């Protein structure tokens, strides 16, 4: 995997070897270039029966279902599902807030682990992988490609992604919804510090474009607990105004705002059929990936 390079910090060979047995499925039909694991909206030559279709001159006679002819005296052709490969596009939030981490690992690093591992698995099973680093806009972009050599570039981008700047996730998602023309698995790795209602529009836009949306919502445990004792001066990591707060005075309201946000986000992801995973940075990323992959596999059938 890494013939002449230093090993990637965000990749663990043992984890990858364990995850290799769990395929990555998409929840929606994909339009790939080659045959793969994922259902295609078109009919193909897989072994999975899809439907019967009336015979029209020119169809391959080998696909005629003689039994149906014997019963109905009509000519029907069997259609089979087509399996195709997956186009997996990672959208990595590289805004300043992704640099936060109180458990020894920052969100960006955690996102690297997730994206790196998923990207490797996707390429191993023949899927295409691409990435877009977004902050104020799209800072880096790599179209999805099946080429294993392309994986190096993918990892390079992951490695070089540095969190800085403001979050303009909404506009970027809308832009990506327009620019990613073919159906793809859109994996968003972000802390989603935007208004849930605005995300609804993004998710619906992406859904309209027939993408399969998966969101890894990265949150630090300290952001969830807000457990401080001393008065704190909070500096916005994205360059916003600082806030001076007495934690024991503002904690209740912080939690109330957090719960309101999480509730609204839950409603948005449910209504938008988004595969949403809230990830705490103190969780083992392997368990997160297993949960993600197994959940998709179950959904597949």
């Amino acid at each position, binding site marked *: 995997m890494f013939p002449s390079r230093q090993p990637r910090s965000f990749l663990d060979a043992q984890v990858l070897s*364990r*995850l*290799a*047995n*769990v*395929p990555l499925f998409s929840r929606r039909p994909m339009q790939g270039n080659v045959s*793969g*694991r994922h259902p295609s909206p078109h009919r193909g030559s*897989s*072994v*999975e029966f899809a439907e019967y279709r009336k015979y029209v001159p020119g169809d391959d006679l080998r696909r005629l279902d003689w039994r149906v002819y014997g019963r109905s005296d009509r000519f029907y052709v069997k259609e089979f599902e087509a*399996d195709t490969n997956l186009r997996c596009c990672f959208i990595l939030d590289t805004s*300043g*807030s*992704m*640099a*936060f981490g109180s458990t020894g690992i920052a*969100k960006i690093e955690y996102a690297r682990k997730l994206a790196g591992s998923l990207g490797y698995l996707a390429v191993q099973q023949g899927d295409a992988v691409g990435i877009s680093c977004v902050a104020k806009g799209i800072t880096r972009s790599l179209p999805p490609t099946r080429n294993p050599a392309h994986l190096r570039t993918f990892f390079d981008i992951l490695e070089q992604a540095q969190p800085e700047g403001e979050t303009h996730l909404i506009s970027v998602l809308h832009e990506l919804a327009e620019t990613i023309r073919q159906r793809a698995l859109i994996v968003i790795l972000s*802390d989603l*510090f*935007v208004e849930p209602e605005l995300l609804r529009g993004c998710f619906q836009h992406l859904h309209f474009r027939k993408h399969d949306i998966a969101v890894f919502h990265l*949150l*630090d445990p300290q*952001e*969830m607990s*807000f457990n401080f004792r*001393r*008065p704190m*001066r*909070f*500096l*916005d*990591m*994205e360059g916003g105004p600082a*806030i001076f*707060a*007495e934690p*024991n*005075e*503002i904690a*209740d*309201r*912080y939690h*109330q*705002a*957090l*719960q*309101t*946000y*999480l509730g609204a986000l*839950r409603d948005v992801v449910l209504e938008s059929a988004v595969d*949403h995973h*809230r990830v705490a940075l103190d969780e083992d990323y*392997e*368990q997160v990936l*297993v*949960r993600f992959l*197994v959940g998709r*596999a179950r959904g597949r*059938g």
Partner: protein
Amino acid sequence: MTFLQPFLLIGLPLVALPILIHLINQRRYQTLRWAAMIFLLAANRMSRGYARLRQMLILACRMLAIATLIFAISRPLASGWLGRAVGGRPDTTIILLDRSPSMRQQGPGTVISKLEAGRQQLARTLEMLGSGHWVLIESTSPVARDIESPQTLLKLPSTEPASTSADLPAMLETARDYIRTNRTGNTEIWICSDLRQNDWNPDSVRWQTLRDAFLEFPQSIRIHLLAYADVASGNVAIRVTNVRRVQTAHSAELLVSLKLTREGGTDAPLHLPVQIEIEGARSEVTVDMDGSACELKDHRIPIERERERGWGKVSIPADANPADNEFYFVFDRPQPRRTLIVSEDPRTLAAVQLAAAISPDPVLSCSAEIIPREQMTATDWEGISLLVWHAPLPEADTAQVVQAFLQRGGQVLFLPPRTPNDVAFLGVRWQDWLDVPSETSVETWRGDQDILANTQSGASLPVGRLQIRRTCGVSGELTPLASLKGGRPLLARLPTTRGGVYFCTTTPDAADSSLASNGVVLYVFVQRALAAGAAVLGQTRQLVAGDAALEQPLTWRPVAGAADALSTDYVHHAGVYAAGDRLLAVNRSAAEDHAAVLADDRVAELFRGLSFTRVDDRAGSLVGLIQEMWRPFLVAMMIALLAEAGLCLPRPKPESDASAKAARPGPASVRADPVARAGAFGSSPMRLST
């Protein structure tokens, strides 16, 4: 609010400590680069009313706890009568103790008198307040004496009840002089009294002088009054108004006149048994009393014919004030009253001689003798009660003789000579005769006291009907007893410590005045002066407690009463005493039988401009003058701390992790071997078969 340790209130600025800590704490902030600003901003936008209110309440509770703790350790006092006057430990505390007979009044349902209650309250209170120095001024002595501690008040004999009336202005003057002489620091004066008018003399000009003197002191002078102003309704006082020995054909009798007075203005009829004791022999008479006063005139008590001199006592059953339930008297065969008239013109003073020689009582022998001035040194002065001097004022030897007579208690009446000289006697000298253009009458005279006083029935003497034609001017420090129109004195008294000296500016001569033709006024004032002289010079004498003029109390021997009195205090305790061959009866003054109490505003007026506080107490009251009230402050502190603790309790956190946990599968499913589960899928893509 007053405090025993007010200097501890200097710690009150510590109340700001919670705010200070809060501000310092806010300065000790940590800076943290934070990602989830979205939630902080939303929290900021939320209503902060309750949170801010809670924060302020917590601070307020902490400040209240500190404040109440400081107040508690400063030992606040409950009673507000001390006002803010008690500001720390004084340098000197002067105690003015009223020991007059009215202070022996007992409280309802108790045997504790006002004086005893006052002593106990003062001992307890002053012990608590503390002082650098203690001084006692009691009503029978004009001397300020140092005492070791307030507890001494309960032990000293000089704080026991006495029969002498108090003189509060004089006691305050003593206090003033003590402060001035000893240059005390911050001083507190404590007065324990029952506010009787006769003790306080509110109309005396000395009050103004005292106020000015206390105001002039540079140091702080605070005056506290412990008042026992309640009057016992129905208390009866008994007094002997007259006693005389009468010789009958076969025996002798005492004619005793009594007067009973009742306090409270009640008119309920009362049958009062009066015990009369004559040197151990007792008899009883019942007096029916309705109204506030009644008299028993000339009650006859038979005595041995041979008993010419003796003593007696009248008493009534115990009531609220035991001090006025007894009265001592002495009796004697009436002594002849002799008047010596020194005159250059005997004819002019014939009327005076007549007035002095006519006895008002058949059993009383009066005589008057006119001698020229040259013979007075050779005269036997034994038994002379009154000297009438109608000559140029005495000088040299004659002046010494007259002064010696005065020192013995005799009375002297000076009438102007025909040709006054420039000689002065005791600072008084005659001036020139003046003819009054037309007959003039007396415009004013003293009817309340002295020799021109009204009769016992209250009728005034016909002084206003006198016609004065010529008067002689007189200069000196005289107190007018009668004045003519225009202010010229007709009769004046020279204040003396012993005896009595009167100056009459006219003579009974018809050319000078109508004294002789009127007769009544001349007779009355001559007889009164004669009686006053005879009273002092007789073998028995009725004395008012505290007034031992012309006597030697240290030589007295107690005959009755005054069982517990010190020999130096006999003059202040009612009883009968023997001074050689003489018998002396000491009793409370007549003013003690009148229960007039000073009104509150009158008392306040007396101390106007001074730092003055007053507390009213009752005899037998168990309530202390001051009560410390640190307990409520400690309770308030505990309540404040509990409230602060309750407000600081963290609110139960909403179940924020419940939704997070719901988003994740359970631990069992997560921890299942992913490889094993992945093996179910195999390495080949899953195919669905129909």
